[in-house]
């Protein structure tokens, strides 16, 4: 049965942070490479923002990771508004695609970063009412809008009762909130706290809606882990607009940790910050850690206070874990599995320093409150299940699951079935050790009647130390159905990679082509599988293999 999230007394995320502000007001709450807010300062700024903000307004943030984005997020949650975190470097066309489904009422951005959002608004709805504001760090009231779009943000009604000396520069208005273009009524269900963008299968961003109860549930589910770091600092280079990056900041902030974030890839500087702040935990993507290891992370600076490394959101990569072990033998490594369609983590796996490296794909046990379906408990026969090939689609039921996604400007589609289960799109199986991820359901390559999981081939390629990244896609072929194309980054010779695949994979899984090139990335830094697929589909075969 589902737990009682909907009936329990709701505690604002801001209130959870407020308890730490009372205990340790001067401790650093959030720090970026540019600035830091103490807990007291963070609360002050979030409160001020919250007081001004109308309930249910959609608040688009175009901000760097850091204290300011955190204050805006907490203030948004506290007054029942909806946070729409946007990537800082979004193009106008990308934002236009989002705004066609959901118009922001407020855009929080530095003036120099607000241009694409304002242009996107202009394209989508000439009459869109959106205040563009910038929270000035030097202003004691920290709420001066640097500029307001006078043409498009004119308030439809001005509620002067909300205007006082501290917020005189704001334009409170009571016009339509929470709406799509041309729809003069709220288009989101009540209680939505976060509208999270994720890459859709069609190439158009998908807006995932997370209820405030889902955020609270997820923070509670992670608390047994995060409270181990109370009073200590954690470092996260994940972009905060990203689902996991944003969740990590709130998970640790509400557990009383100082959270350090970064917006630029300057690992020498990051290492100094980790050392000076005595960070106990580093939470990052596997790709980030792989690059740091190649750059010599831990070689000269062993970072003795750093005791834990969280890798998310990905299945166990044995080669990477072994590489980390060699560089930093005393680290506890944690695998964290989650989805954009649910807030926070769904499973965690701890690999203590001296423990055996777990099998590929293991992501650990579901957190309390997370139920699994679609995967049977295989027990001692798990090895057989793994050898048998790809498992079933994993389904999860959790209070942290999303309400739905914005399928049309005025229609929210549910993501869970009638029993409350969310289809993850991931395939796997479960045994006594936990959940094992084997790949994505939608990424199968169908070749000569075989269903081939790209992740399996990618794993073999990534085990070569000269491969930095790998994406395997299927390219349509009139005879075979599809050819398998492996796209790799790194210094490995293509012929060696083919030989490796021949050694470790069944013949029908060996790629027909290996291409060495820079893999397109999403804004969050993940390999952009759809872009690789498109590039390979258009690429003349004669150019396919660098070493040919």
């Amino acid at each position, binding site marked *: 049965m589902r737990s009682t999230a909907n009936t329990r007394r709701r505690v604002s995320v801001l209130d959870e942070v407020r308890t730490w502000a009372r205990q340790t007001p001067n401790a650093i709450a959030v720090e970026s490479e540019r600035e830091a807010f103490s807990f007291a300062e963070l609360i002050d700024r979030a409160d001020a923002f919250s007081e001004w903000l109308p309930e249910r307004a959609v608040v688009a943030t175009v901000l760097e990771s850091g204290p300011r984005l955190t204050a805006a997020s907490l203030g948004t949650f506290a007054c029942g508004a909806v946070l729409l975190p946007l990537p800082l470097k979004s193009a106008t066309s990308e934002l236009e695609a989002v705004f066609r489904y959901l118009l922001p009422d407020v855009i929080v951005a530095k003036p120099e970063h607000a241009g694409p959002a304002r242009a996107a608004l202009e394209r989508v709805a000439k009459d869109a009412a959106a205040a563009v504001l910038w929270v000035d760090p030097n202003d004691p009231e920290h709420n001066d809008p640097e500029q307001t779009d006078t043409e498009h943000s004119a308030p439809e009604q001005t509620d002067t009762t909300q205007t006082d000396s501290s917020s005189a520069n704001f334009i409170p208005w009571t016009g339509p909130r929470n709406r799509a273009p041309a729809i003069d009524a709220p288009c989101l269900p009540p209680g939505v706290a976060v509208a999270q963008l994720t890459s859709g299968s069609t190439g158009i961003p998908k807006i995932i809606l997370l209820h405030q109860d889902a955020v609270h549930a997820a923070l509670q589910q992670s608390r047994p882990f995060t409270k181990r770091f109370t009073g200590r600092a954690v470092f996260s280079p994940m972009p905060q607009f990203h689902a996991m990056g944003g969740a990590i900041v709130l998970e640790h902030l509400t557990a009383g940790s100082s959270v350090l974030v970064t917006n*630029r*890839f*300057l*690992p*020498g500087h990051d290492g100094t910050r980790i050392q000076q702040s005595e960070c106990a935990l580093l939470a990052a993507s596997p790709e980030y850690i792989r*690059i740091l290891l*190649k750059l010599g992370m831990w070689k000269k600076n062993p970072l003795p206070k750093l005791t834990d490394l969280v890798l998310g959101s990905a299945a166990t990569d044995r080669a990477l874990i072994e590489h980390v072990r060699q560089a930093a033998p005393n680290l506890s490594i944690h695998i964290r599995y989650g989805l954009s369609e649910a807030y926070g983590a769904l499973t965690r796996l701890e690999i203590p320093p001296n423990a055996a490296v777990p099998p590929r794909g293991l992501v650990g046990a579901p957190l309390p409150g997370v139920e699994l379906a679609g995967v049977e408990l295989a027990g001692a026969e798990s090895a057989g299940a793994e050898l048998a090939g790809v498992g079933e689609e994993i389904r999860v039921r959790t209070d942290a699951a999303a309400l739905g996604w914005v399928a049309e400007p005025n229609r929210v589609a549910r993501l869970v079935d009638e029993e409350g289960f969310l289809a993850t799109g991931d395939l796997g199986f479960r045994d006594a050790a936990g959940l094992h991820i084997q790949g994505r359901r939608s990424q199968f390559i169908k070749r000569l009647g075989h269903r081939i999981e790209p992740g399996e081939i990618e794993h073999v390629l990534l085990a070569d130390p000269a491969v930095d990244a790998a994406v395997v896609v299927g390219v349509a072929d009139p005879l075979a159905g599809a050819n398998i194309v492996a796209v790799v980054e790194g210094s490995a010779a293509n012929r060696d990679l083919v030989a490796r695949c021949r050694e470790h994979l069944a013949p029908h899984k060996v790629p027909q082509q290996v291409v060495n090139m820079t893999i397109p990335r999403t804004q969050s*830094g993940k390999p952009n599988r759809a872009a690789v697929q498109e590039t390979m589909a258009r690429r003349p075969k004669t150019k396919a293999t660098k070493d040919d």
Partner: protein
Amino acid sequence: MTDDVTNEFQEQVTALIATTIEESTGRAVELAADTALIDEGYLDSLTVLQIFMKLHEVFGVELDMEDLTEDAFGTPAAIANLVRAHGGQQP
């Protein structure tokens, strides 16, 4: 630019950085010695790694991750100084 870094050396380093950015991102760039590589968004993590490796291949320097700071890696001129400080030789 330090006295030790000649214009020719500087130009070689700048060209290496520009070529690497182009190869890594597909973005053709024209760099000056004082182009703010980090602030202007030229360097993502993979490009930084590739520049690191090419500096080793071409100039024979062993840089440390600790060198990856804004002061030492923020502009082509700073990188040329870094390479020279690590004993990098013109190819």
